[in-house]
C-alpha cells in the first residue's frame, strides 16, 4: 500500500509546530499502525532526518501510553482499541492519514506527537487511593464480602488505562470520564467509603485546577474510550460530588 501521511512535527514544548507531509510506500496490511510509523522512522533516519517521536510502550493495548489522534479520532477509526492495536488493514491503498497529538491545554506537547499527561497523575494524587498502610496488617481478604455486582462495576471503572483519549475526543477537552472512573472504582467498594467525600471533592478540585474543560454530556468520551468506560461513572461522580458538597 501507499499511504500519504500528514504528521504534526514540533521540536519541543516551546517551539511552534506544523503539519509535515510524508509519503510511505510498501505498507503492509498486517502491520500495526505503530509499525507503519516505525518503517517511516527508519526511512527518515536513513535520510539523516529526525524520526517522528510518539509515545508507545506495551504495544498490546494495556499500558495506555500510545496516544495519537488519527484522522480526527483518538486511537483511530476502530472502536475499543488503542493505536497500538490498530492495523493497517483498516486503511486502503492511497489513503491520506492525518496524525496529531492529543490536544488539550492540560496536555501540553513535549515533542512531535508526545504530550505531557502528568495532570492525570496529579488528579490521582489528590485522593485516588484508600489510606491503608502496607506496613500494617490488614484484615483477611475475605472478611468483608462484597456483592459481585458492585465488585464487577468497580472493576469495570478500574479498567481505565489513563490514556487520555476521553480528553482528546471531548470537544471541551474535559477529563470527567477519567476522573469519574477513578472516583467510581473506590466509591463502589466498602473499603472506599470512609474517605469518599474528601476523595471526590479533592479530585474534582485538582481536575479543575489542571485546566480541563467542562462536561457537556456529548458522550464522545464513552465512544472513544478503548476500554469502554461508561458515562454512568460521570453521573456517579456528579452524585457523589453533590452529596459531598452538601455534607461538607
Amino acid at each position: 500500500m501507499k499511504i500519504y501521511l500528514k504528521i504534526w512535527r514540533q521540536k519541543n514544548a516551546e517551539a511552534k509546530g506544523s503539519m509535515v507531509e510524508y509519503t510511505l510506500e510498501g505498507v503492509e496490511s498486517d502491520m500495526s499502525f505503530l509499525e507503519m510509523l516505525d518503517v517511516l522512522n527508519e526511512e527518515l533516519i536513513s535520510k539523516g532526518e529526525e524520526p517522528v517521536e510518539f509515545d508507545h510502550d506495551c504495544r498490546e493495548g494495556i499500558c495506555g501510553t500510545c496516544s495519537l489522534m488519527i484522522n480526527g479520532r483518538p486511537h483511530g477509526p476502530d472502536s475499543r482499541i488503542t493505536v497500538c492495536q490498530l492495523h493497517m488493514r483498516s486503511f486502503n491503498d492511497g489513503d491520506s492519514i492525518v496524525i496529531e497529538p492529543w490536544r488539550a491545554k492540560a496536555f501540553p506537547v513535549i515533542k512531535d506527537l508526545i504530550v505531557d499527561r502528568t495532570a492525570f497523575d496529579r488528579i490521582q494524587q489528590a485522593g485516588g487511593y484508600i489510606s491503608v498502610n502496607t506496613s500494617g496488617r490488614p484484615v483477611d481478604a475475605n472478611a468483608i464480602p462484597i456483592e459481585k455486582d458492585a465488585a464487577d462495576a468497580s472493576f469495570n471503572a478500574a479498567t481505565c488505562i489513563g490514556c487520555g483519549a476521553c480528553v482528546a475526543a471531548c470537544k471541551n477537552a474535559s477529563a470527567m470520564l477519567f476522573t469519574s472512573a477513578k472516583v467510581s472504582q473506590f466509591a463502589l467498594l466498602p473499603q472506599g467509603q470512609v474517605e469518599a467525600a474528601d476523595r471526590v471533592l479533592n479530585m474534582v478540585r485538582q481536575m479543575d485546577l489542571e485546566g480541563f474543560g467542562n462536561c457537556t454530556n456529548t458522550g464522545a468520551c464513552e465512544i472513544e474510550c478503548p476500554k469502554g468506560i461508561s458515562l454512568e461513572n460521570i453521573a456517579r461522580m456528579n452524585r457523589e460530588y453533590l452529596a459531598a458538597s452538601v455534607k461538607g
Partner: protein
Amino acid sequence: MSGLIKSSLARKVVMALSGLFLVIFLVLHVSINLASVISPDFFNEASHFMGYNPIVQYAMQPILIIGVIVHFVMGFVLEAQNRAARGISYVKYQGSANAPWVSRNMIYSGLVILAFLGLHFYDFWVHEMAYKYIEVNPEDPTRYYAETVEKFAPFWRTIIYVISFGLLGLHLWHGFQSSFQSMGVNNKFTPAIKTFTKVFAVVVPLAFAFIALYHHLNPITH
C-alpha cells in the same frame, strides 16, 4: 456555596437546574398558548391572570428572567472555558464520529434561541410593559387573543418563530436528558427518561410552531 460555583461539576448542575426550570416554564407557556387555538376566551382569561397577578408579576416573572439570564450567561462561560481547554485546535477533528450534532452545537442552538427571545420579548413583553406602565392603559381582559393573532399576520415573523422552535427542539433534544446526567441520574430509568425527553423535545416545539402557523393561516376577519 460560592466555592461550589467555582467547580466544573457545580456549573453543570447550575446549567441543569436552570434548564429544567425553563422546561417547566415551557410546559406552562405551551399550555396557555394551546388555549388560544381551542378557546380564545380561556386564553384571554389566563393571559390576563398572568399579566396582572402580583405573584406572577413580581415574584415569578423576575425568577424566570433570572433563570433565563443564568442559563445563558453560564452557557457562555462554559463555552469560553471549554474552548480555552482545548488550546490548539485539531487540524482534523471528526466530532460526528462519536457525538451527535445537537450535543456538539448547543451554543449555536442556544444563540438562535437567544436571538429569538429578543424578538419575542420585543413582540410581547416590551409591548406589555409599555401598555401597562408607560402608556398606563386600563385593564382590558379581552385584548390578548386579538393581539396575539395579529402578531402572526406577517409571514416573516411566523417563519422566524417556526425556525426558532425548530432550534428549540434541537436544544431540548440534548439538553433536557443531559440535565439528568449532570445531576447524577443515570440508572435503570435512564432509557425511559431519554425517551420521554426526546418526545418532549419534538412535541412541545411542534405545538408552538403549530400555534404560530395556525394563527398565521387563520387571521381574525372583522
